[in-house]
């Protein structure tokens, strides 16, 4: 059985960032990624990132992916990869079972494990919500920005969080007609600068509205949307039919934390963090010693935070394995401060309250 010092499950922003910091500390790692290449969801983010220079602000996500991948390449002697490989089991004796691209199973043992599996898009319940042509918004972003294939000609976006707003703008850039963005809540969920950007393109954003049903013979042809009152109840007589050949669902993300449940980590349902998340301490270690987490799997946030969390946990794991980064203290302080800064505004409130709930602390 293969034996590694640090096994990283998921080659997205936090996994790559952690591998880099661990390597700088002198720790070798193996990154397991189920997609064809590492980079996670950054590889489809064509927009410029927010944050500050330390989190690569104003750089497009696709280029941040390149930066993180190239940083890891500089530690080729310490970082190895298994792509198109899915971790199917995580066991208390620190053994993971993987399925590779040829559908062959094998086992790997690790001294420390970082679960950086990210999150998946939620689904929305409505009549015929399984019709082909109804996608997660992020899935459409992948189809369009990675593969250069359009999801359809006329699209409605369900959800006005940052993903919904950003993907709508990117659909327009690709030449797709975004007929409307609908939002069940009474206010727009994402950054207003994204909303304003869409609005001046002529895209209508309607709050207090959701999709009631979808219709189509074999594939999506139209949807019925309906207004909601402030108690989220349908307002009779406000149904409206819109013909679309694609519908994007952008109603939030759920942490992909099932491997953590499997290995016996204590879990807690924290709605503000996206769902079922592991109970962790300040070093991002779960209740199973030497199993760590970083990124969306321990609370859904922006990718900027996932990167910083990855750096932070990479340092801690190095230290745990007896290889302390030469600038350990300074960097730990820096990354902690960066995370506080990213979470300090009104948009960080959800994360702050979620983390407080997770840690059983009082939240102001």
């Amino acid at each position, binding site marked *: 059985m293969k034996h590694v010092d640090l096994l990283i499950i998921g080659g997205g922003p936090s996994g790559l960032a952690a591998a880099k910091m661990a390597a700088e500390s002198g720790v070798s790692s193996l990154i397991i990624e*189920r997609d064809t290449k590492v980079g996670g969801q950054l590889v489809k983010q064509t927009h410029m990132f927010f944050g500050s220079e330390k989190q690569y602000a104003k750089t497009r996500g696709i280029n941040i992916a390149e930066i993180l991948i190239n940083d890891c390449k500089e530690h080729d002697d310490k970082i190895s990869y298994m792509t*198109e490989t899915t971790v199917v089991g995580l066991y208390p004796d620190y053994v993971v079972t993987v399925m590779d691209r040829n559908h062959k199973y094998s086992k790997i043992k690790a001294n420390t494990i970082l679960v950086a599996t990210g999150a998946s898009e939620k689904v929305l319940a409505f009549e015929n919500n399984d019709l082909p*042509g109804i996608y997660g918004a*992020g899935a459409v972003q992948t*189809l369009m920005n990675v593969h250069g*294939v359009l999801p359809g000609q006329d699209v409605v976006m369900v959800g006005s969080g940052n993903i919904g707003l950003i993907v709508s703008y990117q659909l327009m850039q690709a030449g797709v007609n975004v007929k409307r963005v609908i939002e069940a809540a009474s206010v727009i969920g994402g950054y207003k600068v994204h909303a304003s950007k869409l609005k001046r393109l002529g895209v209508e954003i309607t709050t207090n509205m959701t999709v009631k049903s979808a219709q189509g013979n074999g594939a999506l042809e139209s949807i019925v949307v309906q207004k909601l009152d402030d108690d989220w109840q349908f307002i009779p007589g406000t149904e409206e039919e819109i013909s679309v050949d694609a519908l994007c669902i952008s109603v939030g993300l759920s942490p992909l934390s099932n491997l953590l449940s499997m290995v016996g980590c204590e879990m807690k349902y924290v709605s503000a963090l996206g769902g079922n998340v592991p109970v962790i301490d300040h070093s991002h270690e779960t209740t199973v010693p030497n199993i760590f987490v970083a990124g969306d799997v321990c609370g859904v946030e922006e990718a900027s935070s996932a990167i910083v969390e990855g750096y932070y946990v990479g340092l801690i794991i190095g230290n745990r394995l007896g290889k302390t980064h030469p600038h350990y203290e300074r960097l730990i302080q820096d990354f902690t401060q960066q995370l506080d800064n990213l979470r300090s505004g009104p948009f960080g409130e959800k994360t702050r309250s979620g983390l407080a709930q997770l840690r059983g602390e009082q939240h102001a």
Partner: protein
Amino acid sequence: MRIKEHPILDFKETKKLHFMYNGKQVYGFEGDTIASALHALGIKTLRHSIELKRPRGFYCAIGNCASCNMIVDGTPNVRTCITPLKEGMQVETQKDKGVYNETR
């Protein structure tokens, strides 16, 4: 439909890859997943649901939701959204749970 021009991205034409879809020869390009190649051909239904046999396309594109599972080179339940397209692949719509083939 494929994007030809884009304000941010540069989609270079890659090698054409021929493959079989339900017994018919079609093609995609290097860099495609099976699902993206089929989508570019206008094929949105990739499988049928197990109980009610409802048509299903892909949903998550990260290999998580199983909505895009197809039979590829005889192997069922292949996540076509994260499986790279290869020349000569045999891709079929999956209509059941999939049959385990011991000889493979």
